[in-house]
């Protein structure tokens, strides 16, 4: 199955199966749901950044005309959170608020207007607490503690790992480069604002519709937060109008509408406005990072020590995983003989950060790719040649025990450099014009679930009957990325039928087998493999029946173009519908299942579960820039990108994912920032998101989008369905560093942080003109007390994937909720 020519659907450009509904406005998003007797909910959010709640008086709100119910933190005794190790969120804050936007009460009323009016009548008495505005502030002020369960003070989590003796390598290296970088936080900005509808059936069971990427995780969180058996809850993921990781956590409003629906016996809907989406956040962590990298005289890496400091915001979210991701993928792109990292996440009084497209790996990729550019400049090497020399080998096992399959990175580099005329143009363009190269790799699905279990990560079920129709059920969630299309295409390919003969039912915890959700670029690979298994089982059953009819063996039966036939016997042919009749006669009602579980990771050390993936995608990008030296004004005329995605299941969709990543990457590189405004204590002491609106949070418009020259490189991976790897996240990663490197090529200044703005370029140009280094970026990395590292010798130094020491760990405070969590799991 390595040649696209042998496929009839896979690899062929097609209209996506959900496309017509979307462009004609037929798709029913959560906000479009209107049910009889439905009520509306609005949340009262804290206007102070950090405070103890002394009292909440809802009496006036309860009496307000049109109000049915007012809820406060006291109505919700249980904590929840996406990771079992950080069950630190409350549907409505009980004792404390931790950022401006943290919800403290909810009003359910006949309409949003009445609910909003009633919010103004709720009186909350706050006792202000010390406010933490950034990680350094957090390190310096441990007393103003956000969570009792943090390691100490406001340190949420520290990690320390050593894969070989890096200090020894650095001491022996021809050159050691030390660089500090900063990556500013930014947010997902999906066009659809989160919305949820809760409904109680007459028998007491619950249905929740929500714009979530992960119905299964929401299912667990609702059960835990409200002590409802999972079997009595149905979560339906409505089609998402964009997710990008912003809808992968369970959210306050989802739990609140279920509770309200239970108490009132009426459907309750909550639609967030744009400001509230900024407060839900879970976006890119601001990360300060320090690289110490050794290279030999040819630019080959000898060792690297990476330190990262993450601004986590007010809650755990996926933060522990994010912290790992700021370090674990570094060895996947280029061969790195020895590697050490320390990573630390801090709590601050801001909306919680979490997973955004490229989850945690984007920031250190920026740092490493800019540092490689500096290394190439110092060694007087072509940055493309330097990279080509050190690309990791297919099938490699990295220093930190990540097993790689196919790697098309060298071809990606060669493709983009040929397309852009790199050899003739790089370093030779007139002042003000420049081009920069960067590469990256990304996971195709996290190798482990967010909660430990040995069950499949994705399940697919097929129902087939005499009508000729196939219905496919899967828990995967269509968030605009095209997962429904991949699912249908996979089934259609194997059964040799038209995609229109397949009905797709996804993201419904009552009807569909569990799929963990649309995150970590896992769906195409994991759902795809499960779908192949289910479809092949169905094909086997049909082939058996048809073989019997034609008195031949099942191996001679083929499926193509809506026909099932005996190979070499033109008259032995049935329509797919008639073949299903035969199969139903032989087997009774027809149904199959398929499931997928990722391979066991080779790393056995504690923490080795974050980073493994069934397959890794690879990308190279060249960004061209045009810089006005008087103002620093920056224009991007063109971006060249080549992405190794194993196999383009539907090239139209895959291209959309790659180019969408370029668009989002340019936003992060040029303008997007989750900036905050901190006023001094003598004034209002406020700490607020600087501009929680779509007008002032700058994200590129279509006018700002350059020409993109895209190549899809296909190095099929043995673990991927038809060889496919991911396409939705990896292509974002090289865009920011390639742009920074292009600015250096254009005007000779280094902007070691994003976003890269005209102001910063001008500042660096001024600095250079005054004889300075011509650099804008952070100067230093703070002193952090790191724990003893886990020492894991790399495979080529006799390691077996285990740590050779047992570092003592300060245990996080035991969370009493953990027991409850397990109870719900068992039910």
């Amino acid at each position: 199955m390595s040649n696209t020519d042998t496929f009839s659907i896979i690899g062929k450009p097609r209209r996506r199966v959900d496309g017509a509904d979307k462009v004609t406005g037929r798709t029913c998003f959560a906000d479009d749901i209107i049910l009889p007797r439905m009520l509306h909910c609005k949340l009262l959010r804290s206007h102070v950044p950090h405070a103890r709640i002394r009292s909440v008086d809802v009496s006036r709100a309860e009496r307000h005309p049109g109000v049915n119910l007012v809820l406060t933190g006291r109505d919700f005794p249980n904590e929840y959170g996406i990771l079992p190790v950080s069950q630190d969120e409350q549907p409505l804050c009980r004792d404390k608020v931790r950022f401006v936007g943290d919800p403290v009460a909810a009003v359910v009323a006949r309409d949003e207007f009445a609910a909003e009016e009633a919010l103004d009548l709720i009186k909350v008495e706050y006792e202000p607490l010390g406010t933490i505005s950034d990680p350094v502030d957090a390190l310096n002020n441990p007393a103003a503690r956000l969570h009792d369960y943090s390691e100490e003070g406001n340190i949420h989590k520290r990690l320390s790992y050593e894969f070989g003796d890096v200090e020894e390598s650095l001491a022996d290296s021809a050159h050691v480069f030390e660089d500090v970088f900063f990556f500013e936080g930014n947010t997902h900005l999906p066009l659809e604002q989160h919305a949820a509808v809760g409904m109680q059936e007459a028998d007491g069971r619950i249905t929740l519709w929500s714009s979530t990427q992960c119905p299964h995780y929401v299912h667990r969180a609702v059960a835990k937060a409200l002590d409802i058996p999972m079997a009595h809850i149905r979560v339906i993921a409505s089609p998402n109008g964009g997710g990008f990781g912003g809808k992968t956590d369970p959210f306050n409003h989802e739990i609140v509408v279920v509770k309200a629906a239970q108490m009132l016996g009426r459907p309750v809907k909550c639609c967030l406005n744009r400001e509230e989406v900024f407060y839900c956040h879970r976006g890119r962590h601001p990360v300060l990072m320090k690289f110490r990298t050794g290279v030999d005289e040819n630019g080959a890496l000898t060792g690297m020590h990476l330190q990262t400091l993450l601004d986590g915001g007010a809650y755990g979210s996926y933060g522990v995983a994010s912290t790992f991701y700021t370090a674990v993928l570094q060895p996947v792109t280029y061969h790195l003989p020895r590697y050490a990292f320390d990573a630390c996440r801090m709590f601050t009084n801001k909306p919680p950060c979490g997973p955004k497209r490229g989850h945690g790996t984007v920031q250190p990729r920026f740092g490493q790719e800019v540092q490689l550019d500096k290394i190439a400049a110092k060694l007087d090497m072509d940055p493309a040649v330097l990279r080509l020399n050190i690309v990791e080998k297919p099938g490699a096992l990295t220093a930190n025990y990540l097993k790689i399959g196919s790697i098309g990175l060298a071809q990606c580099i060669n493709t983009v450099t040929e397309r852009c005329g790199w050899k003739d143009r790089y370093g030779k363009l007139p002042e003000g014009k420049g081009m920069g190269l960067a590469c990256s790799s990304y996971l195709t699905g996290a190798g482990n679930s967010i909660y430990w279990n040995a069950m499949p990560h994705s399940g697919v079920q097929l129902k087939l009957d005499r009508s000729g129709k196939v219905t496919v059920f899967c828990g995967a969630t269509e968030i605009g990325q095209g997962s429904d299309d991949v699912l249908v295409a996979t089934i259609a390919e194997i059964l040799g039928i038209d995609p229109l003969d397949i009905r797709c039912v996804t993201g419904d915890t009552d009807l569909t087998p569990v799929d963990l959700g649309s995150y970590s670029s896992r769906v195409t690979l994991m759902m795809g493999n499960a779908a192949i298994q289910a479809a092949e089982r169905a094909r086997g059953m049909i082939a058996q029946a048809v073989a019997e009819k034609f008195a031949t063996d099942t191996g001679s039966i083929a499926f193509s173009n809506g026909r099932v036939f005996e190979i070499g016997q033109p008259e032995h042919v049935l329509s797919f519908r008639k073949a299903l009749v035969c199969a139903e006669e032989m087997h009774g009602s027809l149904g199959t299942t398929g499931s997928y579980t990722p391979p066991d990771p080779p790393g056995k050390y504690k923490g080795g579960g974050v980073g493994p993936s069934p397959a890794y995608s690879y990308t190279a990008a060249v960004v061209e820039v045009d810089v006005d030296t008087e103002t620093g004004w920056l224009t991007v005329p063109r971006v060249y990108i080549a992405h190794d995605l194993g196999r383009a299941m539907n090239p139209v969709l895959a291209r959309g994912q790659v180019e969408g990543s370029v668009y989002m990457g340019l936003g992060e590189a040029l303008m997007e920032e989750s900036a905050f405004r901190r006023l001094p204590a003598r004034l209002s002491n406020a700490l607020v998101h600087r501009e929680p609106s779509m007008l002032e949070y700058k994200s590129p418009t279509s006018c700002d989008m350059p020409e993109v020259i895209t190549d899809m490189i296909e190095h099929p991976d043995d673990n991927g369905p038809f060889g496919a790897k991911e396409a939705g996240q990896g292509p974002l990663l090289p865009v920011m560093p390639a742009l920074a490197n292009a600015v250096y090529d254009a005007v000779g200044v280094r902007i070691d942080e994003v976003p890269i703005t005209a102001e910063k370029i001008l500042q660096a140009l001024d600095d250079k003109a005054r004889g300075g280094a011509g650099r804008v970026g952070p100067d230093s990395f703070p002193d952090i007390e790191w724990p003893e590292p886990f020492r894991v010798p790399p495979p080529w130094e006799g390691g077996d994937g285990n740590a050779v020491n047992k570092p003592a760990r300060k245990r996080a405070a035991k969370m009493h909720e953990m027991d409850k969590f397990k109870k719900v799991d068992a039910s």
Partner: protein
Amino acid sequence: MMRLPQFHYYRPRDVDEAAQILAGEDDAMVVAGGTDLLPNMKRRQQTPRTLVALRHIDSLKKLTNGAGLTIGAGVTLTSLEQNKTVKSAYAGLWQAAAQVATPHLRNMGTLGGNICLDTRCNYYDQNHEWRKAIDFCMKKDGDICWVSTGSKKCLATSSTDTAPALIALRAEVELVSAAGRRTLPLQHLYQDDGIHYLTRRREEILTNIILPQAGATRSTYWKLRRRGSFDFPVLSVAAALEFDEHDVIADARVVLGAVASQPVVCAAVNEQLRGKGLTDEVIEDMAAACAKAAKPVKNTDFAPHWRKRAVAHVTRCALRELRGDDMRETRKKLARQSLI
């Protein structure tokens, strides 16, 4: 979404009826396209008890050619953008109108509305909950200016695109109330106060914008903003120059937008330009003089010191374009669109 507060809504058929309603209401505002006022009302920046809609008054939607051009205040920015006379004779106005907000907003937004656009400040242009979190400012519900806590005056920024272009073109505006009508140079409609930025009286309706005959005047409008669409200006330069047959400047008007609470007419520059040719030296001098006149404060996108640095560059672009230099590539980079 954020919800509008409740209000009374009137839909008069003509200007007289509208003026009568305004005369009888002490908490009323007029609304045309609503693209500025309605979002402000959702954020509770303005909460008038009564809205008087101008959308259905046909006389406000007319463009009349005479000695010059009279544009009804209710003409949408899209119709202005599509008008051939505007594009050929008043290029600066056309370029300004074409760069307001987004196509959708220009379909609704009117010229009168853009002229009366509320001044903007990123402490003020936030919803009620945000302003409560940071504490209210003097422009609405509070008494401090967060941009400059020592300031006695509100420093909100004039962000209209069309006004600098129109002032450069020596436009006049007509105001009508139940008591009568008056005409004044558009420049005099403004004053440098972020709260009381218009000299228009509450009961007056802006009805017409009157442009003199374009004659040999060449005009242009350059807008600086982060993105090629959607954003308000962080700086704009409007210029209108009349040359005599020897390419000597007979009349000059350079107006800066988004650097004060009103459009800034660079009077000294205009004086100096008269009688000169647009040599590189003259352009340099004028660019420096404009940079001096601009006093941006920290309440828009981009840092004020950068905006001030950019004034010279953008002024130079505007004047060079009027001289006849080919500025298409520069324009494309700065505006992210061609505007031709």
